[in-house]
């Protein structure tokens, strides 16, 4: 009897030792697993807390229809730049490229600058007064007139041209009385600034303001030009005979009289070329806006005189954008916004004086205002950048 009890106890004891050690091992492994997971989770949260980035600038380049956004990694976490996501107006964009430095590295290290490039960014118009940025630079502008935006903002001011950054800060003044006598209109395109001077000829300047040449001076074909427009192939001039002439942008040679006087065209005062040729025209004292195909055909009035009172400048969204808008300085006090078919959409007047002269639109609306100086109006396009670990930032264009 005693031996049986002893044997049973021995079996139980051996089984207990074996099973306990097995169970302990299992619990210990599980504990290690969960502890490791908590540590990983803590590391992830720590990485996320130390992830931060700042916007340096967001620039739209009209010539090649490209939006560049430059961001600096201001946190302490290294990120994979190709795992960044970009949303434009709420839509996820798959075609953006993300580049750090010269593009050889995919790592976005702390203090590094990453450039996000997006072709055809589909910039829309949704301006509100709350988004306006009034630049405190009116003391730089005494009598601002026409304006054009390229890498910087160029504004005719008296007989000079004042240059501002795209953020509205004054940069420098171009003053060259030898070559630029009395600038009437200007257009920034590609590597040059095309300045219609003294209502006789078109000068070319570098983007830094250095005079290059008198590019077009053709009194026979184009006498007393009053407005200039530029696209990739041509320079367009509204001349004293009330028609639109076209010159080669490569050579400056006369190409043709694109739109003759008569029919839709009466007495054009301003021109802008995007996906179409748009002119501000006046007939019997009444202003209207006409639209032509790029070959000069199909002229039609798209905005009638009931909307317009002495419009001084016209600008159009770049031709590469899917959604394009027409911006018209009206009655020296507002910027009217139409679609390309002339349907009225909105007006921008809050924050503008009654001495508004010119406007140009790229990624923002830029307005030359006799009282406020350069007014930069955000278009309202929302851009959201999301890093690989979910840290994000919203930017308004």
């Amino acid at each position: 009897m005693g031996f049986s009890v002893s044997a049973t106890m021995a079996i139980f004891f051996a089984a207990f030792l074996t099973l306990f050690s097995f169970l302990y091992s299992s619990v210990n492994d599980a504990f290690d697993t969960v502890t490791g997971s908590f540590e990983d989770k803590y590391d992830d949260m720590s990485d996320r807390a130390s992830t931060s980035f700042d916007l340096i600038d967001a620039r739209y380049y009209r010539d090649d229809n490209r939006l560049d956004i430059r961001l600096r990694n201001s946190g302490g976490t290294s990120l994979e730049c190709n795992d960044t996501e970009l949303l434009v107006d709420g839509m996820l964009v798959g075609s953006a490229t993300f580049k750090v430095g010269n593009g050889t590295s995919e790592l976005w290290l702390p203090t590094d600058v990453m450039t996000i490039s997006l072709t055809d960014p589909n910039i829309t118009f949704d301006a509100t007064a709350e988004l306006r940025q009034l630049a405190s630079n009116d003391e730089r502008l005494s009598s601002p007139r026409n304006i054009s935006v390229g890498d910087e903002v160029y504004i005719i001011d008296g007989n000079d041209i004042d240059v501002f950054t795209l953020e509205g800060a004054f940069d420098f003044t171009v003053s060259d009385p030898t070559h630029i006598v009395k600038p009437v209109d200007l257009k920034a395109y590609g590597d040059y600034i095309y300045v219609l001077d003294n209502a006789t000829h078109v000068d070319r300047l570098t983007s830094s303001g250095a005079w290059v040449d008198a590019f077009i001076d053709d009194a026979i074909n184009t006498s007393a030009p009053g407005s200039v427009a530029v696209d990739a192939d041509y320079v367009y001039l509204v001349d004293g005979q009330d028609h639109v002439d076209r010159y080669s942008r490569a050579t400056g040679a006369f190409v043709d009289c694109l739109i003759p006087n008569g029919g839709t065209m009466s007495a054009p005062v301003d021109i802008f070329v995007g996906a179409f040729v748009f002119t501000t025209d006046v007939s019997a004292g009444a202003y209207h806006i006409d639209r032509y195909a790029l070959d000069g055909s199909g002229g039609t009035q798209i905005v009638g005189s009931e909307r317009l009172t002495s419009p001084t400048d016209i600008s159009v969204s770049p031709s590469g954008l899917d959604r394009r808008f027409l911006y018209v300085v009206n009655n020296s006090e507002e910027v009217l916004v139409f679609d390309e078919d002339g349907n009225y959409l909105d007006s921008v007047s809050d924050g503008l004086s009654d001495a508004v002269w010119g406007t140009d639109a790229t990624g923002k609306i830029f307005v030359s205002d006799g009282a406020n100086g350069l007014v930069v109006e955000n278009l309202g396009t929302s851009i959201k950048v999301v890093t690989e670990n979910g840290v994000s930032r919203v930017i308004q264009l």
Partner: protein
Amino acid sequence: MGASTASTQLIFFISALVVSSIVVAVATRSVFDIASGIDDRSGIVEDQLATDIQIINDPSVVPNDPVLIYVKNVGKVTLNHELVSVMLDGITVYNATLTVTGSGSAYWEPASTLIISMDQNLVAGDHTVTVTTENGVSDKMDFRI
């Protein structure tokens, strides 16, 4: 008498061995089940802790008709996007189309984004969307149309 006592003790001894072996076998099975359960449970907790998703839409401009929701896998685990559940304004959406971007994989890998397209035209106002993964990790976003 001596022989019968010895036989009885032998029977008791054998019976004790058999009974104790049965008890040990039952206990062993139970302990194995418990250990297996602990392993499974720790694996689930490990997966849940390593799983993290984030709805990355701009809540002020969520695409409508169809409603597009973008969810980024910001965790460490590759997920099966076919097992994702979507609730819009508290109602489960069954006919959503799910597409993974950012990699060529059929699965929802870390750092890639899941596009959830719902063929709905939401009325203007405030809405809520909740996305839940296969292991119960979820994210929620309030937005306005």
